[in-house]
Each structure stands twice: as C-alpha cells, then as structure tokens.
C-alpha cells in the first residue's frame, strides 16, 4: 500500500466517523443543533452525494456529459412511493423496487443515448430525461400529477424483526448505505472495468482499437449510474415521504452535475464535498432569504468561472499540486496541440535520456 492510498483510507475513515458523531448530543446540544441544522439535512446530503456520484461515474470517469440523471433519481422516488402506496411494500422492498424502476428507465433510454457523444449526448440525456417528467406530471390519477404524491414511511426490517425509523436512525441507515456505495464505487473505478471507462474518457477510439466494444462499457456504466441515482432517489423519497415531478426535472439534473463540479469531477470525494456545500449552503441560504435561487445560481456561475477543478480539487491542488482525479476541467488546448502532432518538446526528450 502506497502513501496516497494510506492517506485515502485514513481520510475515508475520518470522514465517516465525523459524519457519525455530528448528530450526537453532548449535554443538550450537538454540533448539528448548534448550527441550527436538522439531522435529516445530513441524510439529504448523503443521498445527493450518491446521486452526484452517479453523474461522476459518467462525466468524471467515462467522459459522458449526462444532464438527465434526475430522471433516474425521480424514477427511484416514484418507484418506492408507488410500490408503498399501492402495494403496501416495506422499506427495503420500496428501496429495491425504486432502484429497479430507475434501472429499467436506463435500459429503455440507454440504447438511444449510446449512439452519440459529446454535447449531443448531453442534449439527448436532457431531452430523454424529460419524458419521465411529463409521464409523472400527466398520469395524475396514478401519481398525483403536478402536486406529487405523499406516502407513509414503512417500518424497516426483515421477516421476524422490524423497527420504525425516526430521523436519527434513518440518518445512520443512510450513513451505512452511503459507506457501502462509496466502497462499491471505489472498487468499481479501480477494477479493470473502471479503468477501461477512464480510458474511454481519454481516447475512445484507442479503446476500440484495443479490441474492446466501447459501447458495451458505456451501456453498463449508464445502467450502474441509473441504479445509483435510482437508489438515492428511492431513499430520498422515503426520507421526505413524497415524490413529485420536480425530482425528475432537468433543473434537478443540473443540481447533481453542479454538486459534482463543486467538489471536483473524477474524484471519489468530490461529490461528497460538493453535496455538503450545496445542501447545507442551500438550507442556510433558504432560511435567510426567499430569493435563494439567485444565490444558488450565482454560486454555480462563480464556481464555473473561478474553480473549474471544483473546490476540493482547487484546494488539494494548491496543497499537493497533483490533481486528485481526472481533470475534465483542464483546457482542451494542450490536447489539441498534442493531437496535431506538435513536435516533441526538447525538454521531454532530454528528461527521458537522463532517466535512461
């Protein structure tokens, strides 16, 4: 295990421990209550982090601009809500069905998205994402239409044991789910499959000329992403006991992309940091002012213009100079120069000779 990996493990454990102790009370106060925050905001933060990670898998690792992941998020919420409302499912069943519904959404839309790349891919994700919005919006007898649908939060458990979840225990369950997803994500991006995705981001043509059907990899990445977003959406539905068309909307997709960019694309922790800033920032701003949307919008604009590598990325870069992950933020200009076969810099040649 090298030093960087070691630092990674320590950071991960420290973060989870910190998240676990945040709601704990010392006397009559916890860190959270001193900040006038509710524990459910932390649950929301973790779930939005998972949704942003689902975008990260596509954008940060595979290089596919997905602007439609809210569709899977919303499908997850509706999947859980409808199955609980109409079929009396329990908590675990609801979460699983929500995830499966989102996965099915990915299966339907995926083959269309696969055909294009770059901004056309983004455009298709944007357009196809809206289909589900309108279906939820229009099927009002079934889904409650524009007003959305409320549903109860069922008990959590297995045959033989179950418990009601209040906001505190719900949060710890979310922390557990989050830790599992994080580890799973970490394993995926380090697996041969994950490495191939990162290779696709850099040069899909070369991947194909190494004998790999890149479409197959992209399709699976889409499905994994859809399932992750769906799981986050299902659990979010269970958190707020509500599902509404706005969860499926492109503006919600934009929030997820922004959360990922805030923290830094292509890094494991980026979406988590981004979600922390976004969810808590939004909560604080919206208690201070009615016109919070202006400030969120301004945050996006400033972040895009001033911190292209994300806040986490910029911070770490200034500390370590080396980027945490794959910088989709880098200007494409140096690539272009390289592609046009710019003569090798004499510095590079000299450096190589020195090493050999």
């Amino acid at each position, binding site marked *: 295990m090298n030093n960087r990996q070691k630092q990674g493990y320590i950071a991960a454990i420290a973060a989870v421990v910190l998240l676990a102790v945040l709601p704990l009370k010392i006397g009559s106060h916890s860190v959270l209550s001193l900040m006038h925050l509710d524990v459910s905001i932390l649950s929301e933060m973790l779930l939005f982090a998972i949704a942003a990670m689902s975008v990260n898998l596509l954008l940060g690792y595979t290089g596919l601009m997905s602007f439609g992941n809210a569709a899977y998020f919303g499908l997850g919420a509706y999947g859980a809500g409808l199955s609980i409302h109409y079929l009396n499912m329990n908590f675990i069943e609801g979460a699983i069905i929500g995830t499966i519904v989102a996965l099915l959404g990915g299966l339907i839309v995926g083959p269309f998205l696969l055909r294009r790349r770059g901004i056309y891919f983004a455009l298709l994700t944007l357009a196809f994402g809206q289909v589900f919005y309108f279906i939820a919006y229009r099927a009002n007898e079934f889904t409650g239409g524009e007003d959305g649908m409320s549903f109860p939060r069922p008990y959590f458990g297995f045959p033989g044991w179950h418990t009601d979840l209040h906001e505190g225990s719900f949060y710890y369950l979310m922390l557990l789910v989050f830790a599992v997803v994080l580890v799973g994500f970490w394993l995926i991006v380090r697996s041969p499959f994950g490495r191939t995705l990162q290779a696709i981001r850099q040069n899909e043509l070369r991947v194909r000329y190494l004998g790999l059907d890149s479409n197959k990899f992209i399709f699976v990445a889409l499905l994994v992403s859809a399932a992750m977003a769906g799981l986050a959406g299902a659990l979010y539905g269970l958190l707020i006991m509500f599902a509404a068309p706005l969860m499926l909307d492109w503006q919600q997709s934009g929030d997820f992309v922004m959360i990922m960019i805030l923290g830094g694309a292509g890094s494991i922790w980026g979406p988590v940091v981004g979600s922390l800033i976004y969810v808590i920032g939004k909560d604080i701003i919206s208690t201070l002012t009615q016109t919070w949307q202006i400030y969120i919008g301004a945050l996006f604009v400033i972040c895009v213009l001033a911190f*292209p590598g994300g806040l986490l990325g910029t911070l770490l870069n200034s500390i370590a100079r080396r980027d945490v992950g794959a910088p*989709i933020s880098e200007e494409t200009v140096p690539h272009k120069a390289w592609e046009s076969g710019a003569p090798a810099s004499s510095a590079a040649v000299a450096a190589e000779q020195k090493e050999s």
Partner: protein
Amino acid sequence: MLSNVAPSVFNGLILGAFYAFVAIGLSLIMNLTGTINLAHGSFLTLAGYLAFTLVSKGTSFWFALILAPLLTVVVGVAVERLLIVPLYKRDPIFSLLLTFGLSLIAEEVYRLIWGPNGVPFSAPGILGGGISLGFMQFPTLRLFIAVVLAAAMVLLALFLWRTRFGLRLRAAIQDTEMISAMGTNIQLLYMVNFALGMALAGLAGVLASGLLGLSPTMGNALLMPAFVVAIIGGMGSLFGSIVGGLLVGLAISVTTLFIPAANEVIMYILMAVVLLIRPRGLFGTEGLFG
C-alpha cells in the same frame, strides 16, 4: 370535423414555428461554439417582459416588437462576452452549467421584478378579431404571428446564404479551425452568431407573450420542446429545425384533440422514432461534435 380539426392544426403549426425559432437559435450557438445554452429560454422571457414594460409605459406595441428583441440582443451579447467567452476553450460542460446557473438567477429576478404569476400582455386592437378563411374564422393575432415568424425565417436564410458574412458564418460552423486560419475574426463571428440567436429568441419572446401568457417560466417551457425539435430536425440544420418544429407542433395539436394527456409525451415518442431511423435527425449531417 374539419371545423374542429383545422383550427387545431393551424394552432399547432404556430406553436411549432415558435419551437423552430428557439431551436434554430440554440442550434446556431451550439454548432459554432459547442455551448448548449440553457439560458436561451430566459432571454426569450426577458424580451417578453421588456416589451410588456415598454407597452405599459406608453410605447406602441409595434415599436416594442422591434425594440425589445434589440435590447435582448444587447443584454445577451453582454452576457456572452463577459461570462461565456472565457469558457469556449474549456470542456462544454462548463458553459452548460454556467447558462444553467444564469437561468436560475434570471427566473428569480423576473419573479422579483414582475411578480411570480403571469402578467396580462395583449396585442393591440387591430390584431384582435378574426379573419374569415371561408370554412373557418381565424384569429388575426395568430395569422400575424405566423406571417412575422415566416418573414423572419426568410430574412435569416437570406442572411446566411446570400451575404458574405453569412457564408463565413456557415463555413465556420463546418470547421472552426479552418476559418480562423483563413484570418476571419472568429470572435466577431461568435458574437454575431450569438446575437442572431438572441434576436430570434427575442422576437419569439414578444410574440409568444401575447399567445402563451407571459410568466417567469414561459421561456423555459419552450426550451425543452425546442431541444427535441433540434434533435428531430438534426442539429445544425436550419431547414431541419423548421420541419422538426412544424412536425412537433402538428403532432401535439393532433394528439391534444384525441389523447390530451399524451400531448407532451408525443414529441418524445416522435424523437425516439426519428432517432431509431436516423440517428442524426431528419436533416442532420456529420457535425463537428458528432
């Protein structure tokens, strides 16, 4: 039956013409600079509100119809120069996010200035009434809108195909590197191109206000169908956007008559079918970003 279907079809075509207008503007900007302009709808709404304010301050409707789009062009170009230009060299996701942020800000600002609900904005009396087409009465306003939109499209086509600048613009859309090597001022092309998109959005904004109702979200409501229209027609094809727009408008109006609940979903079904048959859209060619 005809008296029932014909007006719907006409209305659908006019709605489709609006979509086409927005789609052409989006297409121009996207093909030249790789920017998916999510704030396009906000500029459209801005034009509507500017016209509304001008008229309520005593300006004539006709003057507002010209002035509001021009003001929108000024605001749009200022935003492009200040905020979007620095992003042209970077990954397209950043301009996408920037314009997304701008649309969030704009929507809230409109709410602050003009209120969260729609404002009444009606065309002058002369456009009230209707014109008899023999088999049906047709509202003058809609006919007027159809004529203005058609005239503007002809003007745009003349500009792009019959002027030197238009020729350069189309060449640049094909190959940005080549045109900049040839010495054309690429920044000027970017600016004029964006201004064209803004002018189309502005004109559509003023005209749509009288028809669809002016509210902070009016533009965004047109934005998504416009994306679908651009995809159906094929990105980068002016003609494709027009055909796509009319097709979608027609599909919506016919569906509204028979299955009203599916009138939004129908355009996505149409899009899926078109993409299955022609992955690049009806008139799409291999583009820079394909």
